[in-house]
């Protein structure tokens, strides 16, 4: 048995406190009755009620969720294909370039990704809006999906797939009935990560958006620049709760399917 030292416990407690205190304070202050963000005026849900009546915020949330959903579906499909190409197709021409194009966007500064995509859309003379943001988000998030699914595929015993095919199962059917079920936790985790990354993105969306497609982060950002408002605390709390519920749901689903795989899958 490993000995857990006092030092370890203290560093864990401090580290987790640092990670969670700011979000906790934000959530508590979203229930503050006072308009002043720094003065506590008792518990209240008035900012949530105000939020419900704010049509601009509602519209921004609707646009953000549609973009996140559409781009996450596309990114999951493209990313899973890319993962198969990396993990299951041996050598092919341009493999080095392919894998560089998967990994480079993960660390590329967002301002460069955003600027480059905008310049592409301008060069193609496309009207900017919902679809350009969706395409931009798909490009970024498919790389995250590819990395997650690929690491799962790499850990799966290939002999199961080979056994299925030796027994006469056609490749496509093998893929659907053998590969997809074992890789499912990673594919689900990839989808959720793609969804939340898209919902979260400010920089790339600002570059690639156009009239009529103001996403929630763009909206929040312009509000925050004008100053701290209690309504923003309320939106943030709603978003944090939604994400927390999603992650908990995902880990429950994953526990039902395969516990070990998720740990590898959720940790990118």
């Amino acid at each position, binding site marked *: 048995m490993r000995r857990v030292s006092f030092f*370890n416990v203290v560093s864990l407690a401090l580290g987790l406190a640092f990670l969670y205190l700011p979000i906790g304070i934000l959530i508590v202050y979203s229930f503050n009755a006072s308009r002043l963000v720094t003065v506590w005026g008792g518990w209240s849900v008035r900012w949530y009620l105000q939020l419900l009546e704010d049509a601009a915020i509602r519209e921004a949330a609707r646009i953000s969720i549609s973009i996140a959903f559409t781009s996450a579906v596309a990114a999951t499909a493209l990313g899973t294909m890319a993962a198969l190409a990396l993990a299951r197709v041996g050598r092919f021409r341009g493999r080095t370039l392919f894998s560089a194009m998967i990994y*480079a966007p993960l660390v*590329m500064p*967002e301002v460069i990704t955003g600027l*480059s995509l905008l310049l592409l859309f301008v060069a193609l003379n496309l009207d900017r809006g919902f679809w350009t943001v969706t395409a931009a988000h798909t490009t970024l998030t498919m790389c995250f999906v590819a990395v997650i699914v690929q690491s799962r595929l790499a850990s799966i015993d290939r002999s199961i797939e080979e056994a299925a095919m030796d027994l006469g199962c056609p490749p496509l059917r093998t893929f659907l009935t053998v590969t997809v079920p074992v890789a499912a936790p990673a594919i689900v985790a990839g989808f959720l990560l793609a969804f939340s990354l898209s919902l979260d993105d400010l920089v790339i969306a600002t570059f690639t958006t156009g009239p009529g497609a103001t996403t929630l982060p763009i909206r929040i950002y312009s509000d925050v620049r004008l100053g*701290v408002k209690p309504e923003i605390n309320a939106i943030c709390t709603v978003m944090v709760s939604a994400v927390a519920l999603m992650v908990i749901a995902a880990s429950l689903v994953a526990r039902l399917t395969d516990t070990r795989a998720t740990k590898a899958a959720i*940790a990118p």
Partner: protein
Amino acid sequence: MARRQNAGGTFVVVLVPYLWLAALFLVPCLIILKISLSQTAIAQPPYTPVYDFAVGWAGFKEFISGLSFQNYSALAQDTIYLSSYLKSLQVAAVSTAILLVIGYPLAYGISRATGRWQALLVLLVILPFWTSFLIRVYAWITILQTDGLFNRALQALGIISAPVAWLASDTAVYIGIVYSYLPFMVLPLYASLQHVDDSLLEAAADLGCRRWKAFWKITVPLSLPGAIAGALLCFIPVVGEFVIPDLLGSSSSMMIGQTLWTEFFSNKDWPIAGAIAIVLLIVLVGPIAGFEFIRARDLKGR
């Protein structure tokens, strides 16, 4: 699957994502390069020359002769740009160092916990990463305000007598960056610390090696790949960071991401923004290649 028949399936699985990334990642990078060699114009799009595919070879030659390195010499001449690059590199280097110092004990603590706790602790470190980046930065604005909780806590503890203006300072930027990037540092560190074989430490102890010495001689060298991966995973994006310095930092000395943003959105100078991006990429090519190298070696080692 590839070794079997099914060439059609393999072809699709490689080609579709390949074409997507070539069109939406590789081509855009080339377009930035081209724009950075163009000139600003009051037009739509706001630069010249614009290549028209209809004009053929003669037009292409004319287009090439219209390109110039003028934007790059402008970058070299105006000290605003140079100081932005230096500032970005400095902020990235200092925050990566702080992240290592804070992240290492955290990752080490997780790796020493028992199995069930380990899974939970990893989840707890990842969870904030799933919540919005903007929200996490915003949370700090509330806390660091002059009449915010941080100042009041410090005053209550008697550490300071009058409120300090934390916002619009480098300190606030460092806090924001360390807070936002901590999971990126902890996870790779944890991944490599997790693989440190306990029997090595036991052997060292059996041979009379003190615990801290065993830690320095065994654990630290074995966790070095994780530390390098974590450092690069933080350093590279932080150099180009925009949101954190924009919301928490001062406007007097901008990081390069902010300078690019201003040139593009406020000054509408697309070519110079393109040139800034290309130079930033050149600055980051070394670290990105290092990251690729570690990743490729990791995959082989598995």
